[in-house]
């Protein structure tokens, strides 16, 4: 391996107009978060007795977990299947996953009525092995820990060889040595934990068969969630890579991304095959004859979010063009995100609802604020820690 | 051959053999003897319950002398009317076992017994009284405390309320407890023992009764000239504000809920018969109501005949509004006799459509309304001469202007 593949902190100014905008979004979200914590969910959200879950669950948690799938897919690709040429993509994906799950936790804190009890699933006396949510909670907690451990070397690396702080440097070196030798344990655990909770997230709604629209309800919901999470991992990495290249005025790593994009059609194809197969077996295609918000959403989700990018990525021209590749990958990201929103909100039709759920301003602002916060922290970390690998140093302007 | 021939005993059910006559005669004899013994007490014989004797009897061989009837028997047959009659029944029964939130309920037992007589008698309520016995107390079967009794049977509270509410709710749609219960509020413990009046019953406990528009009576009795009476039923109620019980105070349920058409209304003596009408028409001649069959009915009462023709507002008032006492007497004709809050200055003349100005408002009513003819507006000329210096129509009574002197 050549030295140009080494990750390094991005040597750029932190406070740009874009970052200031992100800060503003985070600030607005904090105002609404204060309102929520001071006055309760009824003031900040549009949740009611019929709609217990809103976008804080559907987007902040479910979509957040799905879109953080880049972490385990890249780890599986590079470390388990030993495709080392994609090594430079692992760190940003790992960082995204770590931040993604951290913000999932923050979103969850806002949504939980008794957020101060969030640690309860860790108490063996309260374990409830029948609950799907218990498994999700445990796996997410374990996986978050694994992600932090996987991220440790990046932090340590920053301080190894720091002659100004020799004790810290020595400590970091020791941690680094231990973690490196056991890293494969955590990498494998991370992949297994991801598979478990990505699927369990889908199993969550299997308990409400009478309330779920037939187009989405299936006992295979968990499998579909796992497949879609696996399919969205690489597109997420590609989107991030292209985005940060554009953001930091770097040359896009097209030679890698093009190769990576070749893995997407099979994954997406399997996902699509299961969607269609599930529809055929459960004979839910009849639902599509009627026009309702649900059928329209399902049509958009599958056509624009799965079929279209699948067709696009089968074309070599698309994989070569950064713009087209970005478009196709954004479509996949949209498709999976929309799927999570559909499953948790659009498909959920409670029996006595007098009105439909639509998120309140507070919910929307907090959700956008969390996303902005994630991007912001990502930006800060890549500025100070060796995450991104400069492809061509000369391009940086 | 076949199985049937080898085991004849299993298949032959009829007495086909000639020598079977003997046993048949024997059995018939026993049956006859049994009938002969029990026939005089036929009305006391237990109903056919399909062989389930234990449903009613606690012993194996009950006899008329020792029935050993179960206290809370629930046989699968309809209970038969008992020999008890409601003549001996109490008039009012105080239901007080469960009085906690409310005072005990004074239950008009006689009234309900009369109603029950129209259908199936006492067993309508006293449903599981063992035959020929005194009615057992309800609580001997129905548990007093909720959750202590047999779940197949309502507790005492449920049993009472089912008896009452099934009809009362159907009639009035009213679930207010106060229909029957007097609340135990403010430390009230004294119970009013009055049964509800018939007027309370109509519309509250009894479904509303549609009233007829008119009622035509044919009087054809021996020794009397045949005549007719046209009773304007609806008009009497509307005009005089009568309540049902004002006239129908003697009526019992049976009058409407006749068990059969053979129960003809009893013939009453003349006085009793006319009593409801005489309350008002005491001094009227017979001809004011009775008319010959070929003649048209007499005209309705014309108030003008009393030398007080009804005009405008008075025509719309009910009779009782002025004639507060029955039988009607002539009230004094002074306005203040009824409108005792009217006086010059306080009467809002604007309601007549004519607003009085500051000059006219203080004048006594009779000054303008000569001869106390309040129903027609006086003319200005009646008071003001055309040449008295007041010009018309500029300064006639009308809206009061602030710049008027």
């Amino acid at each position, binding site marked *: 391996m050549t030295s140009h593949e*080494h990750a390094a*902190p991005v*040597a750029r100014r932190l406070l740009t107009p874009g970052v200031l905008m992100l800060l503003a979004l985070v600030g607005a979200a904090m105002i609404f978060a204060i309102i929520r914590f001071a006055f*309760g*969910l009824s003031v900040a959200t549009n*949740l009611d*007795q019929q709609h*217990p879950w809103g976008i804080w669950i559907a987007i902040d948690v479910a979509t957040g977990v799905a879109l953080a799938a880049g972490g385990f897919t890249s780890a599986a690709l590079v*470390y*388990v299947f*030993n495709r*080392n040429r994609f*090594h430079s993509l*692992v760190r940003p994906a790992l960082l995204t996953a770590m931040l993604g799950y951290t913000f999932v936790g923050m979103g969850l804190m806002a949504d*939980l*009525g*008794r*957020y101060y*009890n969030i640690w*309860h*699933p860790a108490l*063996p006396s*309260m*374990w*409830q*092995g*029948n*609950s*799907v*949510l*218990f*498994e*999700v909670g445990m796996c997410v907690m374990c996986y978050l820990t694994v992600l932090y451990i996987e991220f440790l070397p990046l932090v340590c*690396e920053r301080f190894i060889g*720091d002659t100004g702080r020799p004790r810290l440097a020595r400590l970091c070196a020791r941690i680094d040595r231990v973690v*490196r*030798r056991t890293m*494969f344990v955590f990498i*494998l*655990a991370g*992949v*297994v934990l991801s598979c*478990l909770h990505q699927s*369990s997230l889908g199993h969550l709604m*299997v*308990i*409400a*068969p*009478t309330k779920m629209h037939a187009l989405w309800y299936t*006992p295979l919901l968990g499998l579909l969630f796992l497949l879609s999470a696996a399919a969205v991992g690489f597109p997420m990495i590609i989107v991030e890579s292209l985005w940060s290249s554009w953001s930091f005025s770097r040359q896009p790593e097209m030679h890698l991304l093009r190769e990576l994009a070749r893995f997407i059609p099979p994954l997406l194809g399997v996902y699509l095959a299961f969607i269609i197969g599930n529809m055929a077996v459960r004979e839910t295609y009849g639902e599509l004859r009627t026009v309702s918000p649900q059928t329209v959403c399902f049509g958009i989700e599958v056509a624009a979010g799965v079929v279209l990018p699948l067709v696009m990525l089968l074309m070599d021209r698309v994989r070569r063009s950064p713009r087209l590749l970005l478009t196709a990958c954004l479509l996949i990201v949209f498709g999976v995100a929309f799927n999570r929103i559909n499953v948790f909100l659009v498909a959920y039709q409670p029996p006595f609802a007098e009105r439909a759920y639509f998120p309140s301003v507070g919910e929307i602002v907090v959700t956008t604020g969390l996303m902005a916060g994630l991007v912001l922290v990502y930006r800060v970390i890549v500025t100070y820690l060796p995450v991104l690998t400069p492809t061509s140093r000369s391009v940086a302007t | 051959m076949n199985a049937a021939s080898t085991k004849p005993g299993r298949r032959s059910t009829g007495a086909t053999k000639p020598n079977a006559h003997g046993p048949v005669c024997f059995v018939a004899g026993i049956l006859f003897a049994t009938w002969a013994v029990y026939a005089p007490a036929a009305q006391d014989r237990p109903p056919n319950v399909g062989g389930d004797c234990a449903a009613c009897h606690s012993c194996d061989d009950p006899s008329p002398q020792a029935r050993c009837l179960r206290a809370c028997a629930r046989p699968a047959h309809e209970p038969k009317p008992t020999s008890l009659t409601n003549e001996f029944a109490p008039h009012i029964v105080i239901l007080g076992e469960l009085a906690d*939130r409310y005072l005990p309920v004074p239950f008009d037992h006689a009234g309900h017994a009369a109603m029950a007589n129209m259908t199936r008698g006492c067993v309508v309520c006293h449903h599981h009284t063992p035959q020929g016995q005194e009615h057992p107390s309800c609580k001997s079967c129905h548990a007093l405390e*909720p*959750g202590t009794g047999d*779940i*197949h049977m309502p507790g005492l509270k449920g049993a009472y*309320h*089912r008896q009452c*509410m099934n009809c009362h709710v*159907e009639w009035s749609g009213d*679930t207010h407890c106060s229909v029957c219960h007097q609340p135990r509020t403010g430390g009230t413990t004294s119970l009013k023992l009055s049964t509800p009046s018939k007027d309370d019953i109509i519309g509250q406990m009894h479904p509303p009764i549609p009233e007829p528009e008119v009622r035509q009576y044919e009087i054809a009795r021996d020794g009397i000239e045949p005549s007719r009476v046209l009773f304007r039923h609806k008009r009497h109620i509307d005009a005089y504000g009568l309540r049902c019980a004002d006239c129908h105070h003697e009526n019992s349920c049976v009058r409407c809920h006749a068990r059969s058409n053979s129960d003809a209304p009893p013939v009453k003596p003349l006085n009793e018969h006319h009593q409801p009408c005489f309350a008002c028409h005491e001094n009227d001649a017979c001809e004011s109501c009775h008319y010959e069959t070929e003649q048209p009915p007499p005209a309705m009462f014309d108030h003008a005949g009393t030398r007080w023709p009804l005009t405008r507002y008075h025509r719309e008032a009910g009779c009782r509004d002025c004639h507060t006492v029955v039988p009607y007497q002539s009230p004094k004709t002074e306005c203040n006799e009824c409108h005792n809050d009217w006086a010059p200055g306080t009467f809002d003349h604007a309601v007549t459509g004519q607003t009085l100005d500051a000059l006219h408002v203080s004048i006594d009513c009779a000054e303008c309304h000569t001869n106390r003819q309040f129903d027609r507006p006086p003319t200005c000329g009646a008071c003001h001469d055309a040449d008295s210096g007041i010009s018309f129509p500029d300064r006639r009574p009308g809206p009061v202007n602030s710049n008027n002197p």
Partner: protein
Amino acid sequence: MKSSANRRWFLKSLALAGAPVVCPTVEADETDGHESGATSSGTMGVLMDITQCVGCRKCEYACGQAAGFNVPPIETFDDRAVFENDRRPGPASYTVVNRYAAGESPERFVKVNCLHCNEPACASACLVGALQKTATGAVVYDPWKCMGCRYCMVACPFQIPAYEYDNAFTPQVRKCTMCADRIANGARVPACVEICPKECLIYGRRDELLALAHDRIRQHPDRYVEHIYGEHEAGGASWLYLSDRRFADLGFVAVPAAAPSHLTETLQHAVFKHWAPPACLYGLLGAIMWLSRRPDDEPKTSPAVPTMPPRLKGAVS
């Protein structure tokens, strides 16, 4: 040499990683078997005869009193204007009575509250066991365990649990407790059953209530529809209803006979059967990792760290 050392590390670490993973198996296995409808026969329940109810709403009053809600005086419950709209149990009322009129036929009243399912979906969903089916049949809630995730509200097929959204600090899930506390303190029946003037609510053992309900249908086929709501719905419930109208016309949701938690628990326990599937996946991935590694890539396999740290100081400043 280095490669063999790595292999030993690999195996040792694999074993260590497996150990804590196996420990919770005992916990998971205990809850493996489903509570079937047959075993729930000893539980208590309530049978409501809808044909008897006159809509006096006294149960709402008694319930509010027993639950410690701030209830208005009993006379205010005579107000029948509330029947204009269908109501649902809420965070301040465990039960409501709704009226259903259908043309000429007499109006019917239905008391709505938690059915206390035999295999409650809410309890199966709750990740900390805040909702639990007690031995007496009541499904009760422990606010001290609750995290407030409201998954129970998603899971309940009857949409019963209500949430105190207005409470900013200690919100609770509120639903009928079948007066579990009250009965534990010596009361014989729940408050609503006790006050019901016509005793259209009967409290008793569920199997006896079911037998009674079947008897009534058999004895009066003209008076009842041949369906006991709650006998099979969602795996059966402690609360049972007898009616003379189709339940669909009385605001009851059609719920299939299988308990909703069956499928999720089956999936859940299949995925974690003796921890074998996760362990197999772990082993499989480990094997792939081991087999696909190339000797020349040796330093690259484990950490996400490049071999040579870059000069960071300059880059950051």
